[in-house]
């Protein structure tokens, strides 16, 4: 009886899950495997092999990978520095990292478009200093740059979290047993923060892989990611079947990459998922 009451508490979430996750996925699956007239087909899914789609998918994978690696390289040392600071200043720095996340996502991208544009703030500043203009707007570089800017906190926070959980005692014990700084890093700190690294990678790689707004606004139509292709299929061509088919392929990629990372996380022994 009491159990039943508890389960009832999950009711609103269950309704949410059915209405906004399961149902849409079912709809996508239906459209993905049917033609406009409603008969079964593989064509929507297999159209990923069309060169324009394949190119977009590969570019998405490439940019997401670059973005993830840059975030990782920036975040790990930063998390270490952060962890070494006094508790009071730690809170303040974390607050500064989170601060941009309180601003609307689209607004931030638009801001970078203004900043990076030919006559934007950065270029006029460079001009007055007599330096060459930064001409990266409408290139993959700008897209990666903005994605890194957007997703960096999602990498820093889980790594910092994992690092903060390591007891000072544990490090001292390793030193006591004869470990030098390098050994401590590779044998203690890195393995114990692996769960954070894995969460960080998933939380950056997946949204980077599926993003379309950044490339839309900062790519100027020249950087076509798989997200943009799907968006166009739905919004411009009104071809829901093609859009769903491509979405299905992208979902497979997301699920596979998450599964891959999770199996790596398990080896670390302290997976969070």
């Amino acid at each position, binding site marked *: 009886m009491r159990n039943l009451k508890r389960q009832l508490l999950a009711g609103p979430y269950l309704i949410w899950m059915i209405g906004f996750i399961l149902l849409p996925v079912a709809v996508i699956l239906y459209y993905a495997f049917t033609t406009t007239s409603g008969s079964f087909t593989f064509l929507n899914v297999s159209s990923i092999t069309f060169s324009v789609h394949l190119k977009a998918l590969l570019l998405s994978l490439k940019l997401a990978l670059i973005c993830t690696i840059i975030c990782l390289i920036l975040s790990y040392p930063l998390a270490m520095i952060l962890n070494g600071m006094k508790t009071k200043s730690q809170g303040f720095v974390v607050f500064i990292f989170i601060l941009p996340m309180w601003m609307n996502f689209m607004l931030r991208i638009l801001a970078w478009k203004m900043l990076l544009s030919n006559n934007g703030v950065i270029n006029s500043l460079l001009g007055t200093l007599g330096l060459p203009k930064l001409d990266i707007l409408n290139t993959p570089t700008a897209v990666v740059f903005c994605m890194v800017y957007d997703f960096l906190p999602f990498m820093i926070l889980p790594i910092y979290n994992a690092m903060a959980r390591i007891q000072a005692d544990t490090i001292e014990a*390793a030193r006591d047993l004869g470990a030098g700084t390098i050994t401590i890093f590779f044998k203690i700190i890195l393995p114990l923060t692996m769960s954070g690294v894995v969460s960080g990678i998933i939380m950056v790689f997946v949204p980077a892989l599926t993003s379309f707004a950044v490339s839309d606004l900062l790519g100027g139509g020249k950087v076509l990611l798989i997200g943009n292709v799907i968006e166009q299929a739905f919004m411009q061509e009104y071809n829901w079947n093609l859009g769903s088919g491509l979405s299905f392929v992208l979902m497979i990629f997301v699920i596979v990459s998450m599964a891959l990372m999770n199996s790596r996380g398990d080896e670390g022994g302290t997976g969070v998922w």
Partner: protein
Amino acid sequence: MSKRLIDLQHITKSFDGQMVLDDLNLYIRENEFLTLLGPSGCGKTTTLRIIGGFETPDEGTVIFDGKDITKLAPNERQLNTVFQKYALFPHMSIAENIAFGLKIRKKSKAYIEDKIKYALKLVNLDGFEKRSINSLSGGQQQRIAIARAIVNEPKVLLLDEPLGALDLKLRQDMQYELIRLKNELGITFVYVTHDQEEALTMSDTIVVMNQGYIQQVGTPQDIYNEPINAFVADFIGESNIINGTMIEDRLVKILDVKFPCVDEGFGTNTPVDVVIRPEDVVLVSPEQGMLEGDVTSLIFKGVHWEIEVLANGYEWLVQTTQMHPVGSHVGILVDPFNIQIMNKPESNDEKAVESDA
């Protein structure tokens, strides 16, 4: 007497302007079980961390086996530490935890295997190699921490309140285990605790500390039977500490009654602190006693009764196997040998310093 293995000379340490250790001098002999005992904040853990290399003294020298190691990092010292909260590596199995120090020293695989087996046997956990840390109880984790330290064959094992997180029964069992380990390994143990019973049970030498100063160094018997000042007397077990006046050699006036005692050399009519252990107070019939009083409280403690007797304005703490009901009129008798006379400290500051010289 065996040789001095560790010598702490004029050690001074402060944190954020707060003096923790002030000109501390202490030596530790080879193969002894030495306990640093004191209330929290007395500087005992800091002393241990200075020996371990986790803190550097502001002034002073740490000599280990004839060499100055004051500036040496912990990983370059020939000693190992057992931490209060075990500090095991959570991502490693038990065998990997124990092997950690040996792998760093590049020992052969066979040697490491042997050592793990030996160490697990020593701490009564044979066959636990593959288990994960999280599957162990607190007591088992602490044994693994000890095993991890001793496989490296340190000359000294430092133990920082290793039993602090365990329950009473387990703590008592582990005390005997530690004594056995110490005897089997034949190495020096430096042990930090605030538990006087633990210190008395295990130690060869006890160092009583307070406010950054060493109060008294001695065997458990010395410390218990002949505390050097009121602090030590009070900290090591329960005591009646009473204001008295030394009339002359071998005669002290307590609560307006003259008691014969065995102490000499305090001068005449000198104010002193008198310490009498509760188990040394003998309750007799009123006419037989040196002073008379009334029982005000009676508590059963298992082995003995704990009785409070109000006599001549002082609440005497008495431990006896004889029951005396509350309200009964009794006499108090103390053997001259059981009366401990101590000079009064002149100020609070001196209270801490006086035995430092």
